[in-house]
């Protein structure tokens, strides 16, 4: 893509995110969300393929609806309480509409149907942006309004997200769709702990971003868009493949890798809050996610199929491998022992 245009879009994404997370007034927050939505549309439809255009259109429609609902909820709150402060969201209807709107923005079940299609239609790096940067402003808004949100819809949506993300990801052969479902299940984990300890939501989000960035960049290096292509990466970049295995297991939440940390802390907090059944439900549902992470790991590392691939890019890696992959993979695998430091920083 034209480098200047790319610069404008990336800068707009960062601008929109910064505006939203640093705002006190609802209208600035909404403006930041809209800037984000508009800036990422050309990145999704970079390739002018009908599937990419379809993904961009679906993304725009859902995000515009969600933004309108956010504005609507803040207007109801302003009408009822007379102020537009994000942290002073006290009207119950406004909070409910806000919860729905942010669920739509994030892709929480039952508002998740757009997410896999949009990920499938966009290139891998744009998928990365969709899973990480585009999730930050809505989660920041949830963090800021968490004291006034109703736990019931949030908990229901969270458990439903983890379960649906797990079940729907089971049978996929396209890696981008699998990553979309993994994102949906992680969002469920983030949402369930929001009302009890919002810092854990943010911790989960940061660690999820690190792991998923490592994963996306690894898949981007080998351009593995479906499982069959993933199976041939062992011959092209064996060390990167081994790192991919560990990153996937970390995403699945297995100790002693980093991904275990947020899950452990969330289950501990839920148990302390007397929500043991919710903790059991969410842990069992994330086993479904474990299945498809293991399937990805199995395809990438454990199988050694005797065939080559029909993808020309597999034979040569065009660009040098980004050093960011090394840093992020190390972080996504080795951060568990420094948990006390992370907890102190929360």
């Amino acid at each position, binding site marked *: 893509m034209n480098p200047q245009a790319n610069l404008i879009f990336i800068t707009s994404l960062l601008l929109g995110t910064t505006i939203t997370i640093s705002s006190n007034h609802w209208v600035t927050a909404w403006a930041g969300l809209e800037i984000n939505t508009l800036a990422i549309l050309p990145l999704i439809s970079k*390739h*002018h*393929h*009908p*599937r990419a*255009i*379809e993904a961009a*259109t*679906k993304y725009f429609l859902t995000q515009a609806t969600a933004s309108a609902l956010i504005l609507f909820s803040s207007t109801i709150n302003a009408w009822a309480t007379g102020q537009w402060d994000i942290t002073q969201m006290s009207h119950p209807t406004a909070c409910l509409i806000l919860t729905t709107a942010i669920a739509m923005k994030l892709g929480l079940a039952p508002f998740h149907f757009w997410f896999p299609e949009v990920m*499938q239609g966009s290139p891998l790096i744009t998928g990365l942006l969709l899973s990480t940067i585009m999730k930050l402003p809505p989660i920041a808004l949830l963090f800021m309004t968490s004291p006034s949100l109703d736990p019931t819809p949030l908990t229901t949506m969270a458990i439903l997200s983890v379960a649906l993300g797990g079940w729907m990801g*089971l*049978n*996929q*052969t*396209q890696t981008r769709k699998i990553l979309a479902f993994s994102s949906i299940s992680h969002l469920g984990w983030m949402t369930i702990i929001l009302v009890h300890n919002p810092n854990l939501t943010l911790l989960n989000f940061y660690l999820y971003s690190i792991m998923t960035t490592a994963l996306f960049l690894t898949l981007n290096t080998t351009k593995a868009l*479906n*499982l*069959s292509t993933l*199976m041939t990466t062992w011959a092209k970049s064996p060390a990167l493949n081994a790192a991919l295995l560990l990153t996937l297991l970390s995403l699945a939440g297995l100790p002693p890798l980093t991904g275990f940390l947020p899950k452990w802390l969330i289950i501990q907090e839920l148990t302390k809050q007397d929500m043991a059944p919710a903790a059991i439900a969410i842990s069992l549902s994330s086993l479904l996610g474990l299945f498809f992470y293991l*399937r990805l790991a*199995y*395809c990438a590392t454990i*199988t050694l*199929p005797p*065939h*080559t691939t*029909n993808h*020309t890019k597999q034979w040569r890696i065009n660009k040098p491998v980004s050093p960011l992959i090394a840093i992020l993979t190390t972080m996504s695998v080795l951060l568990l022992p420094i948990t006390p430091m992370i907890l102190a920083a929360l």
Partner: protein
Amino acid sequence: MALAVMLRNGASFHGGCCGHQVLLSLIGPLLSTSKLYSSYRRPGAEPEKKQSWQNADFSFKKGIDHLKTQLSLLKKEAQDYFLGPRGHSLSKHSLEQTRVLWQFRSQEDLNKWVISSDVEIGGKSKVYLKLGRNNQAALLYGTLNTEVPRDGETAYSGYCSMRSRPAVGSFNRKKYYDWSNFNSLYFRVRGDGRPWMVNIYTDPYFSHQKDDLYSYFMFTRGGPYWEEIKIPFSKFFLSSRGRVQDSQHPVWLDKTLGFTIGDKVDGPFQLEIDFIGLLNDRAHREEFAYETYDKNTPV
């Protein structure tokens, strides 16, 4: 009279605000001989058939039977979901390099295909599909006639085609084929030397793209020997309503729906098809055969 018919058609088309409804009810009895839609139909089109809502069968027992079959299909789909992609295990999905899609051995295999010709627009071609000798192949045969129907608006005529019926799952939902493991189509045919056009329809999300077809050609040899023809997917070009588009892109294979074979030149034709399958041709390295960069860059 014609104006009144148009008014009535217009009213029914726009769903009627109350003014139109009143007018409709006033002049309706006067125009009881006209129909609720345009009475022009193309010369080859079938005469008015029953509306689909008139076909509704309110028999309770048949409804229960239908529900039972759909539920059993749904149960099978749910079980297949847990086996792996498309009901086959992952090892089968990842190791398969060939797959037979349509094999013509019996009448029900033939029923998966629909034949059509330019009779729809008023032309005179004939096409038939039957099982070949010993039930070993399908024979698509007929006569092409490029005589243009005289309805004042058609410029070309003369086509016959065979289209695959879209696969339906339980409760008549669309089922998509996932061909992302493969990169070529594979035909075992015995033609008569005529070229054929192969079209793929990927079910688009937007109605603007519903006429999009990815096409390429199949040249048959005509000899008494069977031919194996491989057509890589990278060669398929995009056309919409028959016009080749300027901006091309490769066909995405994770959601294809159906398949056509067509022909054009006067005279009789015959094509025997043994099977149609998919192949992952390791030797084929091309990603896309046509240029994808901007051809008319703004200055």
